[in-house]
């Protein structure tokens, strides 16, 4: 029917516009940084790398292609993953305040990171930063396992209520561990370093890590898009979803583990960046409607844009210094959240 076509058409337009915004933003983001590189030189570097020839200095290539581009692509990937996971978990738990870290991923990752950073444990031949990433990933999965065990005990499937509670409990446990380790074993500026990691940063991204992040984003996008219609079925709750033929328990397991694994991958490389997963889904729904196919795509695009801009601001706002990107997303996200809640129609 023409009405359905119109809505679909509108969604397509919005998604196309955000994609165009992404490309334009990336071009600008690549020219910003501690050292000035004009947009024209940025394009020259890109063109040369893509095989079109041309002359650029070693420094320009290092800055644009090896430092900034992985960072911008990493922001796009990480932003997409976080927003996608936020959208999925909000629908799955029917909780508007759910975010990708619901299942203990961020607290578990911090436990892993702190263990390496403060206790100085070595991980076979890896540089400290790589060891931290590995430990963060392992910690996140361990926390996820604990949350799932607690949430599924009692055998009524992964009820949203139990899952949220289990996540909170595990988060408290992990933060206790982190505090004790820092206070009792922390030397020098241990507390500052832990806080800095926790607030997230895309500064350490190079091509090897960014390719992993892009892979995770692609997997998340395809996988969750396939589940989009099942997520629509959850609109009226578990019983209706079941009646519509959705296997509720297995869907919950698959999606929760899926979001946790891709989020853990992201957190392992860039730390805990909050608010993107919480706020972006709410921002895109008024624009593209409520069908999950549109919401998920738009959330991915919106998350990419938001994180790319937050990261650009993080490294350009203060001269010679990096503001932690997680602090910026919180600064942006909190008032947006309040505004969204205020304009909600009384249902």
């Amino acid at each position, binding site marked *: *029917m023409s*009405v*359905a076509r119109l809505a679909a058409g509108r969604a397509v337009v919005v998604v196309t516009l955000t994609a165009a915004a992404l490309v334009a933003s990336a071009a600008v983001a690549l020219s910003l940084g501690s050292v000035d590189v004009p947009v024209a030189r940025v394009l020259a570097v890109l063109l040369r790398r893509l095989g079109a020839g041309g002359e650029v200095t070693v420094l320009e290539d290092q800055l644009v292609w090896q430092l900034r581009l992985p960072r911008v692509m990493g922001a796009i990937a990480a932003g997409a993953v976080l927003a996608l996971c936020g959208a999925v978990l909000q629908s799955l738990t029917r909780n*508007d305040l759910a975010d990708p870290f619901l299942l203990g991923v961020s607290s578990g990752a911090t436990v892993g990171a702190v263990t390496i950073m403060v206790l100085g444990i070595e991980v076979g031949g890896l540089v400290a930063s790589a060891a931290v990433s590995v430990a963060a990933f392992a910690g996140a999965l361990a926390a996820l396992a604990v949350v799932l065990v607690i949430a599924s005990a009692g055998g009524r499937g992964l009820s949203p209520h139990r899952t949220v509670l289990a996540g909170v409990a595990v988060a408290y446990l992990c933060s206790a561990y982190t505090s004790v380790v820092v206070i009792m074993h922390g030397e020098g500026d241990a507390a500052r370093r832990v806080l800095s990691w926790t607030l997230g940063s895309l500064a350490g991204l190079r091509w090897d890590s960014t390719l992993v992040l892009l892979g995770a984003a692609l997997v998340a996008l395809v996988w969750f*898009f*396939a*589940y989009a*219609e*099942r997520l*629509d*079925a959850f*609109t*009226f*709750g578990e*019983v*209706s979803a*079941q*009646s*519509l*033929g*959705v*296997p509720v328990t297995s869907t919950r397991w698959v999606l929760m583990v899926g979001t946790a694994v891709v989020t853990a991958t992201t957190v392992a490389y860039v730390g805990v960046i909050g608010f993107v997963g919480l706020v972006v889904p709410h921002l895109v729904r008024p624009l593209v*409607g*409520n*069908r999950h196919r549109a919401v998920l795509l738009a959330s991915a695009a919106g998350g990419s844009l938001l994180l790319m801009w937050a990261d650009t601001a993080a490294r350009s706002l203060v001269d010679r210094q990096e503001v932690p990107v997680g602090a910026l997303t919180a600064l942006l996200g909190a008032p947006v959240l309040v505004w969204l809640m205020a304009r909600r*129609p009384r*249902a």
Partner: protein
Amino acid sequence: MTHRDLCVHSSTPDLRASGIVVRLGVDVVLDDVDVLARGGRVTALLGPNGSGKTTLLHVLAGLRKPDRGTVLVGDVAIRSLSHRRRAQTVALVEQHATTTTDLTVRQVVALGRLPHRRMLGARGDSGAEVVDTVMDLVGLTHLADRGWTTLSGGERQRAHLARTLAQQPAVLLLDEPTNHLDLGQQLRFLALARDLGLTTVAALHDLELATAFCDDVVVLNHGRVHGQGPVTSTLTASLLREVYHVDASLDPHPRLDRHHLVWDGHVEENS
């Protein structure tokens, strides 16, 4: 217009449950329950609060595995079907289906097409036709693009019914569908359900509505079947006294060609 325009099933099958036992911890919620809902007829599921009606409906819908017993649709065991096939066979309108998401009526009804779609598939046109047909059936076409939050209770119930019909099931299960509706809306809804001609089981609170719109009745009490069969022969004065503690009977309706409930007063529970 009846379900025959939508029908994908060759006949209206019986819904038969045998030996259903459901335990919740130490409590026995359903104790050796046998139910027969005849094809094409409307069966009322009656019983006081806490008698196990919702649980039984969930078992009949294949949503809950009983500790013992089987449910057959025609001659197919419902638990042997895949989730998709089951959703194309039996559909449930549940008691309190709410959402804060502001979907349009059309989008809500379109959810019913899910069992007929593949995970990454594109929307087929047949889906859209079915959606339009069922919206017309329940009388919501003029509200197709309205947001869910703007609808009245009656409109929402009809939308849920349309969504369930969009699944094109052979069996329709309704859990207290008229709870938050005005009398007029109640009558309209039940008339609609009856006229569809599907095998229907409706859990109802109101004995009068059951008498007016249903062909057969199953009476549950404390998880056991107290009696089942055609309405007039099952709802005897003694059953009404034992189960509902009322002095009442079904008498012929003064104007219409059916019976209606006449009650004198309540009865002390110990007498």
